[in-house]
């Protein structure tokens, strides 16, 4: 336990330390990369609640990531062009405020997860994997062919949205925002795992019959977990869109779902800091391998294969050893 805690602290500190070092050395792009790692880690933390804690192998989390992105895109593009989103029955205006956008993203992601989860959770196993994939694909095709918000071209937001008291266009300040959100969500996720809900949810993953026998319905636990998971991933999507100042249907594609899953697995399923380790490693690989060869996907594939086959428990599992029961 102590070893994993220590590792977590080191890992967690690695992000701001790298960002600060890059700031000192005037390497703003490195800050951008670390910010990207923090945001993708956030998406992974979201998925990990469904996947690691609840055992729900969702292959459709891109749906929530994309919805978060589009929440930002739609609101900010209307604010950018000074056109209201709708005028009747009541006026809704666009906004450039990050806090409002986050709220909308969380609610949208949560509601979508409620609908998708309520339908998908009727199935189990491979069927669940595939039906979540199907919902993701549905949104993907919808986003591509719906012309109002740019379709395949996506939406560009020229100036990053506003956060009270900070200049969001400055890479280090935007990093601070993303990292702050990640830290808060990690804290919430750690409390969640230890809460009554977390205890029951994780028990339902280990043995659903046991949970039923003590009078708790696994379906409700899983649905709530799916909603929380979707809401967090949507929040990450909104931040990711703000990082790029751009949203496009790519955020909905099944590759995105696969990648978020890869972060979680690379780092270690069900480990609180697994997604952080996984996302950081992924970004590192993308830039180290991508610089070495146009064909870096081969190496990424090989590495992923090795992790799945031989390093179960991912990076953290390998470094920290067997998971100890939560106390």
């Amino acid at each position, binding site marked *: 336990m102590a070893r994993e805690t220590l590792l977590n602290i080191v890992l967690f500190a690695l992000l701001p330390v790298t960002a600060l070092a890059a700031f000192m050395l005037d*390497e*703003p*792009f*490195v800050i*951008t*990369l670390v910010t*990207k790692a923090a945001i993708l880690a956030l998406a992974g933390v979201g998925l990990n609640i469904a996947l690691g804690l609840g055992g729900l192998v969702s292959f459709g989390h891109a749906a929530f990531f994309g919805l978060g992105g589009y929440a930002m895109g739609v609101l900010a593009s209307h604010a950018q062009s000074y056109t209201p989103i709708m005028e009747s029955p009541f006026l809704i205006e666009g906004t450039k405020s990050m806090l409002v956008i986050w709220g909308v993203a969380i609610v949208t992601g949560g509601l979508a997860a409620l609908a998708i989860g309520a339908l998908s959770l009727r199935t189990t196993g491979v069927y669940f994997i595939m039906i979540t994939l199907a919902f993701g694909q549905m949104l993907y*095709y919808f986003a*591509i*062919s719906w*012309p109002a918000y*740019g*379709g*395949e*071209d*996506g939406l*560009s937001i*020229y100036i990053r949205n506003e956060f009270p008291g900070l200049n969001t266009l400055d*890479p280090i300040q935007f990093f601070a925002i993303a990292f702050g959100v990640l830290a808060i969500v990690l804290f919430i996720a750690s409390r969640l795992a230890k809460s009554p809900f977390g205890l029951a949810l994780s028990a339902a993953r280990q043995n659903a019959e046991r949970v039923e026998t003590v009078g708790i319905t696994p379906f409700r636990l899983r649905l709530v977990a799916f909603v929380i998971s979707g809401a967090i991933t949507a929040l990450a999507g909104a931040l*990711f869109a703000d990082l*790029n*100042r*751009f949203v*496009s249907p*790519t*955020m909905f594609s099944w590759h995105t779902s696969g990648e978020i899953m890869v972060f979680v697995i690379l780092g270690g399923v069900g480990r609180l800091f697994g997604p952080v380790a996984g996302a950081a490693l992924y970004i590192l690989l993308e830039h180290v391998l*991508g610089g070495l060869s*146009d*064909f*870096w*996907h081969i190496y990424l594939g090989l590495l992923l294969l090795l992790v799945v086959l031989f390093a179960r428990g991912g990076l953290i599992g390998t470094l920290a050893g067997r998971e100890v029961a939560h106390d």
Partner: protein
Amino acid sequence: MKLKSLIAAASIAALSAGMAYADAHGGKVKVGMITTLSGGGAGLGIDVRDGFMLAAKGNENLELVIEDDQRKPDIAVQLADKLIQSEKVDVLTGIIWSNLAMAVVPAATAQGKFYLSPNAGPSALAGKGCSPLYFNVAWQNDAFNEAAGSWASENDIKKVFLMAPNYPAGQDMIAGFKRTYTGEVVEEVYTKLGQTDYAAEIAQMRASDADTVYFFLPGGMGISFMKQYAGSGVDKNVMGPAFSFDQGILGAIGDAALGVKNTSHWSKDLDNEANVKFVADFQAEFGRLPSLYAAQGYDTALLLQSAMGKADVKDAAAFQAAMEEADFASVRGDFSFAPNHHPIQDIYMREVVKEGDVVTNKVIGVAASAHQDVYGADCKM
């Protein structure tokens, strides 16, 4: 053959790496190229890169950093950030796809960087979203289609069947054709992006009384459609913008493409000095026929170098003025910039023919001379 060309590309890539890390930067221009080098659609990016490097070969004042966007908008945006923030480039170029351009260009020009588009010309960047620092060296999305529309009107094509994928570029292309076409549009079909089977659409074509099918289906979609169309026995004329009949694609379609008319601003048989040299040099360097993407990459580098000879890139106004002159020998023949920094150029009508064993394009006439896009009116700069 494929393998050989790959080795050639690899050695050029090594060369470019050498260029990228060449030392000093004062008085020189540092160019960041973001293009698609891996995954689907990599062929287009590789051609733009090779064309650009061919034209820039030996120019020690031009430092080039090449990055692969994997055809993902978010990666492209981050690479642009990297090139601007870390590499401190003066000029950006290379993007193939409209959606990636929309993601990168506004942010890059907002940060005071020049952007030269070697491909992709979304209407937003030609009209309201135009910028003094943005130069399109390729075409506005509608251009080939408007030219095709007027050619069709003048050449007695009375009824057309229109088809494109259901996404903004597809809708733009069809709108462009309809803008200049005076005959009857019998049917207008939008397919799924990435669709591979066109049996249903071909059946609709057979059932319609159109005399000509006009379509825009880039990349693999066009290959699939043309092969299936040829096998269907439907014998209507086929037309389209050049994207589905480019050299890289014709090889995969084969004889099925013979006789198709397509509009392009360039063709390898254009008889001007610059083009003859370009085609010969490209074949000598890479061992394959150049595509229109290679031609655009080549022209982009020529334009940039012409401006470098006249002004320092640090003086943005002077450099912009130098670029606006477009004082270079384009492989397309006459080339100048409209006030919105988009090309004024001839658009040719080509026909797919067989030369020996090779299926390729031949110019059969001019579809629109000194063509200029319609969006410039909205451009205030």
